[in-house]
């Protein structure tokens, strides 16, 4: 599996070293190198990648602000000279830290963690066919087949089925990791849809049972790839 990645690093020698490590691994395809958050954000708003190698302290905005500016949730490996970003790292679901300078072996360890997360392993053949959500003081089973889409509402999400809506304290970012990837996909930072329930797709959106949902530019190619066009 080739992991597409972007390097966001203002220190030239660190970026050069990182590029070389990526090349040596044979597992990473470096799509770009940016020395500041703004340039990276422009690129990542039009191009989706699996992984960011992200320096935290750069001129201008902090590396973490980039994660708020992009419409998808790539895996993140922090490259830093400090170790005191644990709180932010936890909040942004960072996969690993690489303290500069790091060895190639340490780099590989971090990349292997990402690989393991990107591989759809651990799910039964065909994936789980249901989930449980906590609502109104009980755990309610939702079969994948009944679920149409999930919509973000800030710190809450709305699960929309054929006949009901459930509001649950959770985030799209978190659910993206947990939902069966064969059945569901993220089409926008605020929406995860059941791919089997899509009725039609237009330029910037898709319809499920008469409801139009937006597709972000970053997710459009993946959506087209997932549907069965004859």
């Amino acid at each position, binding site marked *: 599996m080739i992991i597409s990645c972007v390097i966001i690093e203002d220190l030239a*020698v660190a970026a050069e070293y990182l590029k070389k490590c990526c090349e040596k691994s044979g597992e990473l395809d470096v799509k770009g190198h940016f020395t500041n958050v703004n340039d990276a954000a422009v690129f990542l708003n039009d191009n989706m990648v699996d992984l960011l190698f992200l320096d935290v*302290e750069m001129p201008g905005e902090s590396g973490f602000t980039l994660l708020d500016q992009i419409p998808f949730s790539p895996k993140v490996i922090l490259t830093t000279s*400090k170790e005191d970003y644990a709180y932010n790292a936890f909040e942004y679901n960072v996969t690993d830290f690489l303290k*500069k*300078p790091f060895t190639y072996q340490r780099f590989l360890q971090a990349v292997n963690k990402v690989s393991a997360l990107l591989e759809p392993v651990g799910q039964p053949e065909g994936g789980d066919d249901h989930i449980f959500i906590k609502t109104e003081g009980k755990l309610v089973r939702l079969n994948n087949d009944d679920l149409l889409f999930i919509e973000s509402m800030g710190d809450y999400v709305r699960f929309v089925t054929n006949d009901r809506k459930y509001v649950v304290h959770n985030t799209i970012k978190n659910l993206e990791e947990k939902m069966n990837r064969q059945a569901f996909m993220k089409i926008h930072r605020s929406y995860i849809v059941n791919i089997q329930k899509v009725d039609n797709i237009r330029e910037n959106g898709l319809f499920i049972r008469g409801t139009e949902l937006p597709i972000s530019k970053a997710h459009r190619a993946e959506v087209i790839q997932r549907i069965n066009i004859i």
Partner: protein
Amino acid sequence: MNTIPFQFDRRIDASILYSLYENDYLYIEEIFTTTLQHYDADVEAFETHQQAGSVEGLKRSVHKLKPVFGFVGMSVMQECCQAFEEKCAVAADMRAIYPDSQKLLRLFKQSKKIIEADLQKLSAYNNTTPE
């Protein structure tokens, strides 16, 4: 290419370089070259903040320079940067850290000479074909 191990300056920790690049001396030459290409600008930024009396600016500059020394195997310099960064974090004003900033500036300039000298020798070494 030469097969005899290259002898780095005693202030450059060859074991760190080995852990990062193994004995790929051409690659080490690239790393040293890239380091020097940006070194003056980074040190100038440090000096500018020192002259402007900006403790926060000095802290940022030294934070950026710190890993640079790691990549060229100068772990002692990396530690000096770390110590200075910590002093900046608690310094009330520039007066509290000015003498240390002067020392560090001198060390930055000495370090550049060390890297330059080893780069020159390394370059010659890499171009040497064994008998």
